[in-house]
């Protein structure tokens, strides 16, 4: 669909969906700093957080310009309330143990990779350029999460149990990512095959059961979140909001 045919508010919501996924994912990954299982993994998780944060900033800046109301990336990140956030529920879920974090990363990156790949061909050139940069980064995230999912799934009894529990816990939240949206620059409904093609072989190699489809919580794209998000935002926004108008 030609972007000019879509109402600006709708385009804005789509951009915020992409941006908020990345921002909230970065915020969660940042919680791992100084707590990863090994030093090398501290460096890796921080890199992934930085990638997501970088993408979020580009998308929020673009969203602010498109809106034309003078809001920059910080106004959008720090001064919206949880009901105005458009991220999927999956990214706001707590980190849990390393297995839950890897399950979240596996599923998010297996969604973002075909999404950004498709967006590189969309008619919105600015968005296509951002997607082109983010796509390469997300391919790396998917690779990293896949390596770990396989090692945890096929490692020890304990790691297998934890990884299976993580996959089972997070799987229901993947459905929301593919909710049909014909007005979106790329309709998410068309991405699920690519997602499954990436994820199912990883789970199989990891000797993990692919969970059955069933419960499918959703609401994030329209601002109805889990209880977790407002805590995440309260922490993220507290200092910025305590000093209205200050520059940092």
């Amino acid at each position, binding site marked *: 669909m030609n972007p000019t045919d879509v109402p600006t508010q709708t385009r804005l919501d789509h951009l915020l969906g992409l941006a908020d996924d990345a921002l909230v994912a970065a915020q969660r990954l940042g919680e791992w700093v100084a707590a990863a*299982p090994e030093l090398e993994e501290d460096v890796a998780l921080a890199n992934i957080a930085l990638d997501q944060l970088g993408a979020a900033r580009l998308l929020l800046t673009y969203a602010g310009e498109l809106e034309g109301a003078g809001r920059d990336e910080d106004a959008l990140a720090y001064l919206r309330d949880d009901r105005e956030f458009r991220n999927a529920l999956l990214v706001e879920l707590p980190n849990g*143990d390393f297995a839950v974090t890897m399950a979240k990363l596996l599923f998010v990156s297996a969604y973002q990779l075909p999404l950004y790949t498709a967006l590189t061909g969309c008619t919105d050139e600015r968005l296509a350029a951002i997607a082109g940069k983010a796509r390469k980064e997300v391919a790396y995230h998917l690779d990293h999460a896949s390596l770990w999912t396989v090692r945890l799934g096929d490692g020890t009894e304990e790691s297998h149990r934890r990884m299976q529990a993580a996959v089972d816990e997070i799987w229901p939240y993947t459905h929301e990512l593919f909710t049909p949206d014909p007005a979106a620059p790329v309709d998410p409904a068309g991405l699920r095959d690519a997602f499954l093609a990436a994820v199912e072989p990883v789970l199989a*190699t990891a000797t993990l059961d692919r969970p059955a489809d069933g419960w499918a919580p959703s609401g994030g794209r329209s601002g109805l979140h889990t209880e977790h998000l407002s805590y995440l935002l309260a922490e993220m926004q507290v200092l910025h909001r305590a000093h209205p108008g200050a520059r940092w």
Partner: protein
Amino acid sequence: MYGHDFPGPDDGPADGLLEQVEAAEVALRAAADRGRPGVADGPAADTDPQHYFTALIEADQKIEPRDWMPDAYRKTLIRQIAQHAHSEIIGMQPEGNWISRAPSLGRKAILLAKVQDEAGHGLYLYAAAETLGVTRDELVELLLTGRQKYSSIFNYPTLGWADVGAIGWLVDGAAIVNQVPLCRCSYGPYARAMIRVCKEESFHQRQGYEILHRLASGTPAQRAMAQDAVDRWWYPSLAMFGPPDTDSTHSQQSMAWKIKRFSNDDLRQRFVDMCVQQAGVLDLRLPDPDLRWNEQRQAYDYTQPDYAELMRVISGDGPCNRQRIDHRRRAHADGSWVREAAAAYTAKRQREDRPAVAA
């Protein structure tokens, strides 16, 4: 002169120091080009390891991992490099404390990158220590059981955002003043690691200085926040250089071995002289009423930090010692099943005699 070539906040305070890091790198290559002593040094140097070791040190050559070295030299280096590595790792916590609350996305990204660098520096340094015949596992164990120390400074809390700025400016600044001479340390792997670390650290100090500069020229509340942070971090930063030379137990031998190149008090003075000018540019006050230029010494007179407090903090009774080490122990314990899983996975693949699969 240290720091006095600093023209303003845009160029950052670390430029003069960076030049010295580069000079150390040039010197390292030059020493390598001069070749080893031995031939001109008489046959004894080629047969007697102790003589050879001394000749290398005197010729400003680097000692490399497979060289014979006195046990005490090896032990001193292991202790010092490990303590340095531990400091990087524990040092991630006080700043990591503000990643989630960084007041702008730009600041969040910079802080994340900075704390990530510290993990990288810890990693380089553990690797340098490993060349001396210990493993990272052993060193981590020594940290977690309190048998090896880390820098006392990280046992102070980060109570506000300005603390992130003060850590960058004062703590990283003091660390750089301490570390730049280590780029010329006689032990090759440590000298090379330090060159790499110092180059990356200059960005750290710069970001801290920039945070304070922004706060100091911001709202009254921001300015008060900045001054409060400088008030709390000034003396602990001075204490980072260690006890006064008269009380320092390791200094003499370390200087003879060219592990250490300047005394604690010399480096502390250098740091004070550098900071006075930089505080002026920030328009923030250093909390020392007796700070004044001494024409005769061509240096600032200043109030010494409370060394009794330093000793208390080193011995475990600082505000955050327990918290920091508990955090590290918990992260290590929580990660053990992950490390074991990866090792088990590799062992399975090796038993199956096929390469690990990507997925």
